[in-house]
């Protein structure tokens, strides 16, 4: 999409599940909302197109990390909201500590600044 500064695909792929899980930590969200939030909070560095986001969501749902269900709100179109399962919560915790350790190592070794 012509953006100049985008995340390395390999990094993005490795972190995608954690990003989704972390967004669902407090509340359930629908797919578009997830994509927008990732894009906004990463200031455009991380973007997910529908074509890769939904396969990711379905794959996570298949592994019981998240759960989707259709919700109809008055005056709105029904939407599919995803929420985190206990397994997802546990997975998020593991990923976080993994990534923390990894980033800590990068900071120490490569002299990165903590964001």
């Amino acid at each position, binding site marked *: 999409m012509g953006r100049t500064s985008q995340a390395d695909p390999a990094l993005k792929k490795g972190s995608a599940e954690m990003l989704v899980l972390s967004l669902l930590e407090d509340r359930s969200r629908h*797919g578009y909302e997830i994509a927008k939030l990732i894009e906004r909070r990463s200031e455009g560095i991380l973007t997910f197109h529908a074509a890769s986001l939904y396969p990711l969501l379905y794959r996570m749902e298949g592994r019981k990390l998240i759960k989707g269900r259709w919700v109809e709100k008055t005056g709105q179109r029904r939407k599919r909201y995803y929420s985190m399962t206990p397994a997802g919560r546990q997975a998020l915790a593991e990923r976080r500590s993994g990534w923390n350790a990894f980033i800590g190592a990068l900071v120490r070794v490569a002299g990165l600044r903590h964001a």
Partner: protein
Amino acid sequence: MRDWRLFVRQHFQGRQVPSDQAIDELAQHVEEIWRAARDSGRSDAEALDLARAQLRNGPARLPANMVSEARQGPAAVALAAWRDVRHAARLLRGRPGFTAVAVVTLALGIGANTAIFSVVRSLLLEPLPFTDPDRLVMLWEADAQNPARTTILSAPNYQDFSKGVKAFERTGVWEYESFNFSGDGEAERVQGLRVSSSTFQMLGVAPALGRTFTPEEDAPGHDVAVIGYGLWQRRFGGRSDIVGRTTRINGKPYEIIGVMPASFRFPLDATVVWTPIAFNEEDQGRNSHSFLAAARLKQGISFAAAQAELTALARALARQYPESNGKNTATITPMTDQGLQQLRPTLLALMGAVALVLAIACVNVANLLLAQSTARGREFAIRAAIGASRGRLAAQMMTEALIIAALGGAAGVAVALGCTRLLAELLRGTIGAVPFRDVEAIHVDRLVLAFTAGLSLLTGLVFGLAPIAGLRRGSDLKASGDRGTTGRMTVMRGVLVGTEVALALIVLVGAGLMVKSLVKLLRNDPGLDPSNVLVVTMSLPQPDFYGPPVRKTFCDAVTERVGSLPGVRAVGAISHLPLTGMNAGRSFSIEGKTPPPGENASASYRLTCPGYFEAMGIRLLQGRDFDARDATEAPGVAIINEATAKRYWPGEDPIGKRFKLGRRESPSPWMTVVGVVANTRNFGLDDDTSRRLIFRPYSQSAWPVMTIVAKTAADPAGFATGVRSALQRIDPDLPVNLTTTMTAIERASTGSRRFPLELLGAFGAVALALAIVGVYGVVSCLVNQRTREIGIRVALGARRGQVMALVVSGAMRPVLGGIAAGGIGAVFAARLLGTLLYDVQPGDPAVLGTIGGVLALAGIAASLVPGMRATRVDPITVLRAE
């Protein structure tokens, strides 16, 4: 509003298709993207580009839970199928009219097929009720030049074949006889056989009670009889001490030694008494062809090998006995084919006809489904839009088709159960009995049901494909909702209507040709007047055939006792009744004429009582009928028919001319011709009239079975009891039986044609009705679809006549095309009727023209009602609706 689901679906075209739910989510997502872009001031094209980009660069494989369920494992497929069934059932319940028409249409087609198949199964496919019937063959003598022309055997030839052919494990020989059964209760005439003891062993059928004949009993002088199960039940009340009882057969005491089982038909239902073959002096001539014979082939011997051996032996006999056998050979035919020569082509033609009827039914239902799928265009468009793949929609439609077919099949079985009984009745009333087989036993059994199930499935697949084909073509279906596919659907329905009309034409032409055959047959003058003629057969034991009568006063007694009954206008009797095929022939020598070498004068020979010609309405052309002058001792007299007069006394007055039976030198007395009568047809209405006949008075030449004919003033059935009891009083010991009417006999003589005619007529009527329904349905639909166009035309000033012409001509295009195509098909299909046709060509232009005209009129009639509706279209309403 843009259809975002379609937008997504198009993107996944040719790849793994996401499930309906995933498509929904993706559609919402891209729509939000598009909306956000528009809100930020981008153009629609730019916004669409952004939306499209959202769908690019997905993973090569979607996770299993995101994929359309049709692409999943067997359990999911089964679930989807079950969902289809429930959905289809719901849809069909919601359209009871459509469902009823489709099911009834199919039930007629499938039921007719099932019924005909049940006859085919019982009569053509069922093995004969004998042990190892495949090894049983009929044995014939035949013309060496043309072995297809077979005759029955002489006793000496049979004995030589029986001993000489090693391929035969066992042989049997028999001759038809009828017997006077008396002694216990009323005397009656029954049909039976003289039969060799080996016959029962050859067939491999054991008696239900007692025994069959021993080889010793094949010799003359053993008065023993085996009786049929039916006779045992009827005449002897099924009493268990029947074996060993003595009864009177032909006036002589016979010991009953056995009872055959109920299933034993040899050869016919009516055959109920078997006596030993007891070959006598008269049977010993090699020229005396009187016997039917059969053989069981040894295990492992082929038909061809047996035939080859038999042919070689026949050739040897021809050399040994050139006088009698010089021109003859011998052949075998499968016993299972016996009596089916006429019936097999009839049944095959009928199978063809019912198959066509079913095809028409399929086309009709396909048309209905097509109309439905057009009407349901919006439903399909929506379903397609929310992600139903073509496969899913096709599966859905096929499920509906198969459910309709299954319902049609089930209703068809009910139709068949009723039809099968009617068919058995019809078969018995027209064709009569079939050798060795039980016409009554025609029934729907497991094999027939399997046939029906297979047929239903096939029909479902056939008519289910048409709307699916329409769906496949209609990629525009999804986009256009209501009207997109109408053009193609219309073409397709036109083709279906054309097909239907063509098929109906073929069936109707078949029926038409049969009707014309029968009309031609019935137009044949039988040479007699069958109306109000009562027919009663009576047995008169007579040791010396053609000799002076034992009962000299028989004719007088008949005239006196029956002739005096009120309402009896004339009465007489004859040995061989016309139209029945009964026959006897004699050669004779004419006084003063020398026949060319090798050719003797000959004619069929009949014995009559005075009054016969008058009672039968046979015109006396010259001279007189027999009367009291022609007593047994008086000089011999004869009456000849026109054909005999023309052949032997051309240009002369035959009255007063003399001839004698046999050679000129024979001691038989000269007979003087005293009368000439009109020609009659002997074997049935399709027989020619050139058969030569000689009539002699019963008083001078007697015969053991006489048929009394009485012309009555009113319906002869009402006189049956009176005439029978009058005859009974002549001699209480003589059996009086077979009471019928000449009209019934005339009818029976056309039976082999009336059977297929009546059925083809019925099928033709069904085909016509279905075709009319089909045309009506299509035209109705067409009018509905073109309401707007018609409205505009009316608004622009089209007159009612023009609108009507528009509709009718639109309907007639496929109808006329179908008539043309069907006409060509009918000419070929009618050849199947072959020998069933009488004096009519398969391509008879009158029949083709008439049927074509009928169908064209039916097409016009069917399109008139929707045409009327079209003329009432109100342009204002139509245009406002837009």
